[in-house]
């Protein structure tokens, strides 16, 4: 899993295999399309903008060599694609092109544009447009069903609330922009460096940055306080990685800057792009062309560390900086439930249309039958005689009347499409997110991180996850590397007793004690041997081995003061945790890396400080999968040290000498990886003078090459990295995170399939599989590990047969219920990246899917980032099941974005995964409470809420509809317009929101204890078509009861329209609230307050409305309430309407109870005796934590 991509801008040296470029090209059409798009559009922003969004693996450049695999790195920048910057000449730089200034505006709106833009954005919602159209229709005099204000009010309220929220957020953004823009920086003017506000910095200006300052814009380094031009930067603001990264100024510019005569030159670089790990350009200084790569640019937002000052020229400013271009919000996904909901909304709109059609057809028939009477009908009076000559009044002919009737009924029945539902859903999700964030169970003490909800619209999807795709390192494991053992010169130093000695190894510097920050367990035997020096053959190899570990890396030692002035700690900062572990290990064995600059390193070898010149460094790249460093040793020899993944290393090791050692090392490597250790192989070679000269010449030529530099450097590296003699191998342990085996067990019991996708070796992956309980001993493993399409196909077919026989033998089909492990022999599929290349290429996908869906565990090893996404896509394409991807590194970004739900672990590897994710949390084990508890709740609540909202709006519309049948189909409403408008916004909305946020069908204890309960989400128990139609039937019955009981009770009576309208209003509101109350599972005081409160509020509103003398229904409610029949009607309606639902519910719960129901009863009655004890117990546990 950890691939090149998680180590930005640096060389990288762990075993992680990556596919070579040819296989990557074939992995996925997405990538090839992306790269094709790239080569067509050149360096345009659109082409590269894929980068952070992860549609292809994010790759990182490195010093002197862009490992950027795209063709663009090999191409000359054409003038039209480039931006030209005249160094120290902002006027000239800015005259031709309008580069952006350094003013940053993250605010979306200004005071002037706020109204139109905000409205425009809000009306992107289709529901809003629908209601806008209806409100506009209502403004036509012929169609004015409601008064002007009442028809616009609900939409206006919604728009206003959202606008206020947006305005507030935008105001905060403006404020922070202002602070940013007014920060000061030092810019080279006519007389030296002067203070200047950030917002006034222009492209081409030379800026001086001091230590711990933040960069105001993207700058190309010209010179630093370090004579070799090194600058250390921290990119925590950019990608969250706290370790230091090295950036370099070109030697030529350093010279130039020191000459004091002012700098001039021309930089030609690519157009602004989002790729924070890529930069491409060249610089012409004094007629010389120098190439510029990602290691020469420091981005806005980075902080300069450990470097006194740095001088650079601004190349991208303001919104064109990479940080700003990447400043896009959280990804937006749509939940599955919402998609189903839209389908049902479609049904409802058909229903709405048919209601309107019925009304207009009936109205047409009525008008036709009474066409002769219309002129004189006292309640129609088509003709107006007021102005002498009789003329038609408000009548436009039969056809038009029908059209108008149709449109009026659309207006009257508009809330059939539940607008309030969309707003309620958003509020509910915010509420649910609040409780997820607040949950102590999802808080990670170690990293002090809370749960984060980044996407607010897929909460309920968490309740229906069927597949979990997990990354391994950093996700299942802690990604805190610990050096465990080494095999040196064919000897496995593992058996000996290991212990941490007192304070570990330390050195004396200027009377102070310096020691490594982290202690490493050291093997006593090995320690003794390493101290014995270079005299013995054994000791020499051990010496070289640890020298390689200490030198062959990009780690920067940083000395930190401690509270004890006599002791200082060396903190090894680097981008690869593996390298850090190796350097700490080397330090523990007496090879302490003391100092690193770009030109040399200082290593303390058993108290003797030695200086090595770093003559060349070939960074890690995913094709070679190794790195090398060429050192000039104190004894004037030149040596090349190489470390890398075993596969790549054995191909460059001199096979003819030391065959035994190689064999022994191989077997040790196998042992290491089978206990779950990550392995690296170290080799070295002496360089003789001619070899070195040859290399040096080639290296220098390549470094300054403008075309194909990366390829050239790779070739040179390959040339020098051969005929190595093997030194040994290291084993690094990546510890499992706490609670991972239990979490996987729970997930599996919940019927969730856990697939692990890792970049690790097969053996490592399998051993981690065992330790995490993903694999168990009773499983049959099917391993697919092929090198050609044909063999891959064959083994897939064989595997399908095998797995089928295994499953039929056991006689239980396990893939439907998902609760495997109990069902016969479970099958585990282990497949490697190379095979996946062939599989994901095309026709084999189907076979893999068949095979994989039958397996209870799938382990994919050595997969590339895009393959991860490919596997997720494979499942998404072929099933309706929900997928969840969880990972922590940049290499998981594509997978996280591909899956229905993406979860980022906010751990060691930076924040890219978090930035791309929908939810972020600290530990893998939080997945269990997240899915089983919150996911289950959210799904259940949201499913119920959607159904309920459909119901509550439909019931109201149907009541209106029944009444229309008694009004000559003239679309009169008995319920007055204020009540109609307030109904869905005020009268019945609060309880449903409260219930959808707070109701819990089961306690979290029960849900965690019985993971099987998660199956209710898989079976879509809370929201499906059957439930929808049942609810609609119930709605029909309830609306009929509401309407017809008063109708019959007040038939042939003096009741007036407003009075009976009030009765209907109250009946509907009380009924829908009682209906909700019937389904509430957990009655807390908040729920009580919401439900009963909204009934009371409705009564008050109805009374207030009826106390306004200018309205038609003045005092009607009081006259109604005086009559006994009013109260009898209400009671009768409530009981009769609820009765069928109640009976069906009781029968269903009694005769065919679902799991949730059984668990609920068990919870209530099974635990009732221990309930008192339980609560006390909970309190005592939680009390101390509180403090």
């Amino acid at each position, binding site marked *: 899993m950890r691939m090149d991509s998680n180590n930005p801008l640096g060389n990288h040296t762990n075993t992680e295999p990556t596919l070579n470029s040819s296989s990557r090209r074939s992995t996925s059409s997405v990538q090839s399309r992306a790269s094709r798009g790239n080569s067509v559009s050149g360096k345009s922003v659109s082409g590269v903008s894929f980068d952070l969004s992860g549609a292809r693996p994010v790759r990182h450049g490195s010093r002197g060599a862009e490992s950027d695999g795209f063709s663009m790195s090999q191409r000359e920048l054409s003038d039209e694609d480039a931006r030209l910057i005249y160094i120290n000449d902002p006027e000239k730089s800015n005259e031709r092109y309008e580069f952006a200034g350094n003013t940053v505006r993250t605010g979306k709106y200004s005071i002037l544009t706020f109204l139109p833009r905000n409205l425009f954005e809000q009306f992107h919602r289709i529901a809003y447009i629908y209601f806008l159209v209806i409100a506009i229709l209502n403004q036509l005099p012929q169609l004015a069903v409601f008064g002007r204000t009442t028809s616009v009010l609900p939409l206006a309220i919604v728009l206003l609330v959202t606008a206020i929220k947006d305005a507030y957020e935008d105001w905060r953004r403006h404020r922070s922009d202002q602070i940013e823009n007014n920060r000061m920086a030092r810019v080279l003017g006519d007389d030296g460096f002067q203070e200047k506000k950030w917002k006034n910095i222009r492209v081409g200006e030379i800026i001086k940055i001091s230590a711990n300052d933040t960069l105001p814009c993207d700058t190309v380094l010209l010179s630093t306080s370090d004579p070799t031009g090194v600058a250390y930067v921290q990119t925590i603001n950019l990608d969250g990685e706290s370790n230091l990264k090295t950036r370099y100024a070109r030697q030529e510019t350093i010279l130039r800057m020191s000459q004091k005569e002012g700098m001039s030159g021309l930089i030609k670089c690519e157009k602004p792009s989002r790729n924070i790990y890529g930069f491409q350009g060249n610089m012409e200084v004094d007629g010389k062309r120098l190439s510029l790569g990602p290691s020469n640019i420091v981005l806005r937002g980075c902080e300069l560390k450990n470097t006194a000052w740095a001088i650079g020229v601004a190349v991208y400013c303001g919104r064109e900086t990479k940080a700003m271009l990447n400043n896009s919000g959280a990804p937006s996904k749509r939940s599955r439930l919402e998609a189903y909901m839209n389908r049902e909304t479609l049904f409802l709109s058909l229903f709405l249309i048919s209601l309107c059609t019925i009304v207009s057809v009936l109205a047409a028939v009525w008008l036709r039958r009474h066409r002769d009477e219309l002129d004189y009908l006292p309640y129609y009076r088509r003709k107006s005689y007021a102005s002498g000559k009789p003329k038609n*009044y408000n009548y436009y002919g039969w056809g038009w009347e029908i059209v108008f009737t149709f449109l009026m009924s659309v207006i009257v029945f508009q809330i059939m499409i539940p607008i309030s539902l969309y707003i309620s859903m958003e509020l509910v999700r915010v509420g649910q997110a609040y409780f997820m964030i607040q949950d102590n169970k999802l808080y990670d003490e170690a990293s002090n991180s809370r749960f984060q909800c980044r996407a607010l619209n897929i909460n309920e999807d968490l309740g229906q996850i069927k597949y979990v795709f997990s990354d391994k390192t950093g996700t299942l494991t802690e990604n805190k590397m610990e050096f465990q053992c080494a095999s040196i010169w064919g000897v496995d130093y593992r058996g000996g007793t290991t212990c941490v000695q007192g304070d570990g190894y330390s050195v004396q510097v200027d009377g102070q004690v310096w020691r490594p920050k982290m202690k490493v367990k050291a093997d006593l035997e090995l320690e003794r041997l390493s101290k014995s020096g270079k005299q013995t053959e054994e000791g020499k190899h051990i010496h070289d081995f640890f020298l390689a570990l200490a030198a062959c890396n990009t780690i920067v030692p940083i000395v930190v003061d401690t509270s004890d002035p006599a002791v200082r700690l060396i903190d090894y900062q680097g981008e690869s945790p593996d390298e850090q572990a190796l350097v700490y290990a080397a330090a523990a064995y007496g090879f302490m890396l003391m100092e690193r600059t770009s030109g040399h390193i200082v290593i303390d070898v058993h108290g003797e400080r030695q200086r090595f010149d770093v003559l060349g460094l070939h960074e890690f790249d995913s094709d070679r999968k190794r790195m090398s460093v060429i050192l000039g040793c104190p004894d004037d020899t030149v040596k090349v040290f190489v470390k890398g993944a075993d596969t790549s290393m054995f191909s460059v090791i001199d096979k003819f000498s030391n065959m035994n050692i190689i064999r022994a090392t191989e077997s040790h490597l196998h042992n290491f990886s089978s206990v779950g250790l990550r392995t690296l192989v170290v080799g070295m070679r002496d360089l003789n003078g001619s070899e070195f000269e040859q290399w040096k010449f080639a290296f220098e030529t390549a470094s300054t090459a403008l075309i194909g530099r990366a390829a050239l450097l790779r070739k040179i590296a390959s040339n020098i990295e051969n005929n190595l003699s093997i030194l040994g191998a290291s084993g690094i342990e990546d510890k499992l995170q706490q609670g991972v085996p239990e979490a996987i067990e729970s997930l599996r019991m919940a019927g969730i399939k856990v697939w692990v996708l890792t970049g690790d070796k097969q053996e490592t992956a399998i051993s981690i599989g065992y330790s995490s309980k993903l694999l168990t001993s009773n499983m049959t493993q099917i391993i697919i590990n092929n090198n050609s399409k044909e063999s891959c196909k064959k083994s897939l077919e064989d595997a399908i047969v095998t797995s089928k026989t295994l499953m039929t033998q056991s006689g239980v089909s396990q893939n439907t219920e998902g609760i495997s492990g109990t069902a016969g022999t479970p099958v585990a599929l282990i497949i490697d990246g190379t095979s996946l290349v062939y599989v994901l290429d095309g026709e084999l996908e189907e076979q893999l899917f068949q095979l994989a869906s039958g397996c209870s565990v799938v382990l994919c090893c050595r997969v590339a980032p895009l393959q991860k996404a490919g596997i997720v896509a494979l499942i998404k394409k072929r099933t309706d099941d929900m997928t969840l991807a969880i990972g922590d590194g940049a290499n998981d970004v594509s997978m996280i974005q591909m899956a229905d739900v993406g979860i980022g672990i906010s751990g060691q590897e930076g924040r890219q995964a978090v930035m791309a994710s929908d939810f972020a949390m600290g530990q893998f084990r939080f997945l269990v409470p997240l899915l089983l508890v919150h996911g289950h709740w959210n799904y259940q609540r949201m499913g119920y809420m959607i159904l309920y909202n459909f119901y509550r709006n439909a019931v109201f519309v149907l009541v209106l509809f029944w009444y229309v049948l008694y009004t000559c189909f003239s679309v009169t409403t008995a319920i007055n317009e204020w009540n109609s408008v307030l109904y869905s916004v005020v009268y019945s909305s609060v309880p449903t929101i409260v219930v959808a946020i707070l109701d819990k069908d089961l306690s979290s204890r029960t849900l965690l204890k019985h993971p099987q309960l998660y199956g209710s989400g898989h079976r879509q128990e809370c929201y499906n078509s059957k439930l929808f139609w049942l609810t609609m039937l119930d709605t029909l019955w309830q609306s009929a009861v509401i309407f017809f009981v008063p109708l019959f009770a007040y038939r042939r009576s*003096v009741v007036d329209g407003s009075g009976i309208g009030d009765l209907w209003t109250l009946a509907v509101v009380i009924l829908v609230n009682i209906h909700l109350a019937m389904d509430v599972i957990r009655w807390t005081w908040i729920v009580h307050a919401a439900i009963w409160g909204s009934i009371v509020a409705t009564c008050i509103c109805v009374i207030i409305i009826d106390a306004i003398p200018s309205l038609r229904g003045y005092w009607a409610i009081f006259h109604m309430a005086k009559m006994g029949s009013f109260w009898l009607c209400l009671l009768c309606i409530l009981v009769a309407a609820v009765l069928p639902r109640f009976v069906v519910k009781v*029968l269903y719960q009694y005769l065919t109870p679902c799991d949730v129901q059984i668990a609920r009863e068990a919870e209530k009655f099974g635990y009732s005796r221990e309930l008192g004890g339980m609560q006390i117990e909970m309190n005592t546990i939680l009390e101390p934590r509180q403090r």
Partner: protein
Amino acid sequence: MDPNGGSSSAGAADGASDPAAARRRHSKKPKYSRFTQQELPACKPILTPGWVISSFIFVGIIFIPIGLASLFASERVVEIVHRYDKDCVPASYRNDMLAYIQSNETNKTCTRTFLVPKQMKSPVYIYYQLDNFYQNHRRYVKSRSDKQLRSRASENDTSSCDPEDVTANKSAIVPCGLIAWSLFNDTYGFSVNNTLLGVSKKNIAWKSDQQHKFGSDVYPKNFQSGGLIGGAKLNSSIPLSQQVDLIVWMRTAALPTFRKLYGKIEVDLEANSELTVVIENNYNTYSFGGKKKLVLSTTSWIGGKNDFLGIAYITLGGLSLFLAISFLLIYIIKPR
């Protein structure tokens, strides 16, 4: 909710001399409260057999007596309904009733006699009942001006009163609109055993309407002066707040068959006494096939004579008891 929430966590890890203390200081651990951990004390009702059966029995026990009581109340109401629209047209006009009602020459007076079946305690309410008259029609309902009815200042506020808003010479009609225009204008005179009975119009309109909806300074003007007469004329010297028939009529009915209070007879009517009604049959329902009925009724606590609620309650109560027994049987036959 806070997308940037975790960013400082990475920073907390390095460099701090006492990371534990620092962590404690900057801890983002959510504060414990029963609310945030969703552990508020709650009642979790479950539909146990006991609850189900007892709730059904409870409903049955409550509903059947209520049903019986309301049936009883309804039975005690004495109601005389007499349809007169056809019978009051002389035989010669039976084929062209419209001509009869529209003609100014015909004699509209009509005398009907019927027996009082049971003793009717005072007050006896007199209603007229119209069938097939859609007082709830959209065009009709909207054709009024509440502002004009309330105050004299808004006399000319007739925009919503089409087609009875202004007269031919553009002066406002008060009260304007179709509703007022179509005011019912049949009148009834009662006598029992040849003694004249007084019809009281006191309190037939809602007090609230009289006080707040119909102005005491608004007088009828230009009313029924157009070419087409819809119904009753109003005495233009009486303010609208005293025009009780108009006020009653302006409370538009909810349903196409409706009754309106005409007046009250404030003496008891003995059983089998002969009641004579002299009807001025003016109102034109013949053009649209509407029926006119005269209703005399006493009242009870549930209103007029209506068995529906009683029957509904008894049915529901019976059903509940039946369900209680059925569920009892289910629980016995098929226990968990």
